[in-house]
């Protein structure tokens, strides 16, 4: 259910609910009309990640894409689907499933998140390890520019070097470069089966090494999750494909686990497996929390550093009086850390939190890693810039923004460099 309000408050700024255009022409018309007033506009789908970004510079309007919600055409023989940006991912997957196809992304089962929003926010789950990001499935797209000009990029085919790869520029641009209206996406056949294997133990480093061994032995997991499991830890490995290949891999891993003291393997039922997988994915999804103010940090660092980083985060949590939850997408080099106040009344000092985050970001930079602050109290966001991009790359991004949206209408202030 969409929140039925006349406005959304984003980091203290009011965004009027704005219009719900019925089609691309209306989207274009609205943007063209808006040129005169230059009112800031945030394109929004299901609104599940509106919190993402630096604080807005001022109030504005939301531009809802939820009426553009159709699967326009599914050409199963060509592994191609044309879908409007406001179509919920769940609806898209349901349609594709009729022909036993899918877009290989495992995100929160939240049914409101739209394909356009997920692409704009660069959202993904642990399956990114094998399948890549959503941008790897965009063959072509239609984008309305900030001034209302309707444009397209890419095409309808998987091999395409016809002009610049604008689709890759648009993906992950957080509504900053244009309003997405439609995509041509590549689909994949659904795997015949998928099965998870759980490896449990009390030593996080050992489990991390198990995950590395799965990769080093040339096995082919579609995803690997490292997570807490009660007092111990869990490595969940998902294998997909034809039954013979999947079973061979599971057996092989179980064989060498049997010979390793201190860790044990379990084969969960499909329900248990899917449930646990979803739990790990939900750590990264703010909507899954009960709305308390929290920190949600995405750390990009080599998988081998996960145990140290987890310990650092948990130690900080103890010092700051915060409860820490985390989930590591092994092989994708991503560690999600969520911290909230737990049951305590005392609010952690914003300065303490900010200075820890700054130090973490500096530390990660040294290994070409990153810290992206997905969610934080406003006071923290004022001190710690969300994205952490700097130098010449930031300049290039800002210049691209200036040329495509010279009036700074689309989602201003929220993306890199507080632009």
């Amino acid at each position: 259910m969409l929140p039925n309000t006349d406005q959304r408050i984003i980091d203290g700024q009011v965004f009027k609910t704005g219009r719900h255009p019925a089609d691309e022409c209306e989207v274009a018309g609205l943007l063209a009309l808006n040129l005169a007033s230059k009112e800031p506009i945030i394109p929004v789908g299901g609104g599940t990640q509106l919190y993402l970004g630096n604080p807005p510079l001022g109030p504005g309007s939301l531009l809802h894409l939820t009426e553009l919600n159709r699967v326009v055409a599914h050409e199963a023989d060509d592994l191609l689907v044309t879908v409007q940006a406001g179509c919920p991912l769940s609806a898209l997957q349901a349609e594709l499933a009729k022909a036993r196809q899918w877009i290989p992304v495992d995100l929160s089962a939240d049914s409101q998140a739209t394909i356009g929003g997920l692409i704009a926010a660069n959202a993904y789950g642990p399956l990114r390890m094998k399948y890549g990001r959503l941008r790897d499935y965009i063959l072509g797209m239609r984008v309305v520019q900030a001034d209302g000009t309707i444009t397209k990029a890419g095409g309808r085919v998987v091999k395409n070097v016809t002009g610049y790869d604008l689709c890759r520029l648009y993906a992950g641009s957080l509504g900053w470069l244009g309003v997405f209206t439609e995509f041509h996406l590549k689909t994949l056949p659904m795997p015949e089966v998928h099965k998870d294997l759980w490896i449990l133990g009390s030593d996080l480093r050992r489990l991390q090494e198990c995950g590395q061994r799965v990769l080093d032995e040339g096995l082919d997991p579609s995803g690997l999750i490292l997570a807490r499991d009660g007092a111990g830890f869990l490595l969940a490995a998902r294998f997909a494909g034809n039954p013979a290949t999947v079973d061979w891999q599971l057996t092989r891993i179980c064989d060498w686990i049997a010979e390793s003291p201190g860790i044990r393997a379990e084969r969960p039922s499909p329900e248990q497996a899917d449930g646990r997988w979803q739990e790990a994915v939900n750590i990264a999804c703010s909507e899954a929390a009960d709305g308390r103010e929290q920190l949600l940090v995405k750390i990009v660092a080599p998988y081998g550093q996960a145990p140290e980083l987890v310990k650092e985060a948990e130690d900080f949590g103890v010092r700051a009086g915060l409860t820490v939850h985390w989930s590591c997408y092994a092989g994708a080099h991503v560690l999600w850390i969520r911290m909230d106040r737990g049951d305590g009344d005392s609010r952690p000092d914003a300065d303490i939190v900010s200075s820890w985050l700054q130090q973490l970001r500096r530390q990660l930079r040294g290994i070409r890693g990153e810290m992206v602050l997905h969610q934080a109290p406003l006071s923290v966001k004022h001190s710690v810039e969300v994205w952490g991009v700097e130098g010449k790359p930031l300049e290039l991004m800002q210049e691209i923004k200036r040329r495509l949206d010279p009036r700074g209408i689309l989602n201003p202030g929220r993306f890199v460099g507080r632009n």
Partner: protein
Amino acid sequence: MNEQVLKELRQVLGERHVLTEREDLLVYECDAVTYHRQVPEAVVFPADVGQVARVVRILDQAGIPFVPRGAGTGLSGGSMATPGSVLVEMSRMTWIGEPDRENRFIAAGPGVVNLHLSQAVQHLKLHFAPDPSSQMASTLGGNIAENAGGPHCLKYGTTTNHVLALEVVLPDGTVTDIGSPWGDPAGLDLVGIFVGSEGTFGVVTRATLRLTPVPQAVKTLLLGFEQLEDASRAVSRIIGEGIIPAALEMIDQLGIEAVEKSVYAAGYPRDVAAVLLVELDGLPAGLETLLARIEDIGRENHASVIRQARDEEERQKLWAGRKKAFGAMGKLAPDLIVQDATVPRSKLPAILREIYRISRHYDVPTANVFHAGDGNLHPLLLYDRRDAAMVERVIQASGEILRACLAQGGTLSGEHGIGIDKLAYMDLVFSPEDLEVMRRVRQVFNARDLCNPGKVLPTGAHCFDYKANQDLRPRVSGH
């Protein structure tokens, strides 16, 4: 060319790394599309990123256009000189870094030959997956510029899926790092927009690339069909069943004739309309089932030949035939135009019929050797450039084939790039507004338009002046 500028270049690089004598420059007058030629003003050979940056700065300050170049194997004129330009040839930058085995990436210089990179990591059972047919000669910088494909990109993706980070010299001489070895940097995807920009956004000086495990098992199957329709239908059936082979290539009868006449003779059957080369790879368990299913599909579509490569040697032979096919065309005619348009897979039967019709209509022998699995066609138009009337017919046939591909929902280039070769067709694919967005992005990187000008985007203001190079050949893109 400006003597002062030459002097500065010689100071930076050393005398022997700056070519200015005409007989030296002639070697560089084209890439693999011999149809377009332009002799550069000079060719320079920088050794490292510092020299690249200084060279670019000198040329930028002097307002002299420059063109980055790898091995010159491109098929759209992308690394061909533009009038008055200097070629910045990257072949000295052939270093390969230490592979990060755990995290599966490696850094290397832009002048490294594609195949050499895979060879350098094969002892770790890893390889660089993009395998363009030119891989024995083409360089990483060129692969990145063109978002190179190859037969195995059907399963593994194109070059853009394997580039994690780049160090580039921007057209004003600034050196910068974009991307991240961990694969998902915050902000806009600068690496994503740079790959496939055909050398118009700057010069790559270091590439951090994803390494892929070498598959544990490979099965290669040759299927021969007496009817072309049956071969096309088999392609659709394979994909339609949810099987994504590692590669799925088609070679038609004329293509087979050329290959079998050449040193790359692979033992392809002669009495068929086309062969399919299907490769499956992965863990051994389960491969046999997939292979059997493909053989069934072959039979269901009246395959007259079904043959599995018995060993690695035979497999290499079958692939050499395919990968060297373009060169083998030399056995049939002295000149060749190869196109690269891509269509949705389901349109293959229709577009192949159309290509043969156009070939007959213009009396231009046309072979088809291509990536059937992803709809990336390669019609090979054979001709003799000494026959002016034939050249004219080839131009017409070429244009008609491109238009036919677009009419089937396809695009101009699947992997060779636009370069200058397909400039004239860009406005059949994109509106002026679409092109304007691309222009604006290009201006961010290439504000003065000195870096490989006149490539990829039609300039609109003026056409590329072919007459300047004294070559009387007509322009291929006919307008």
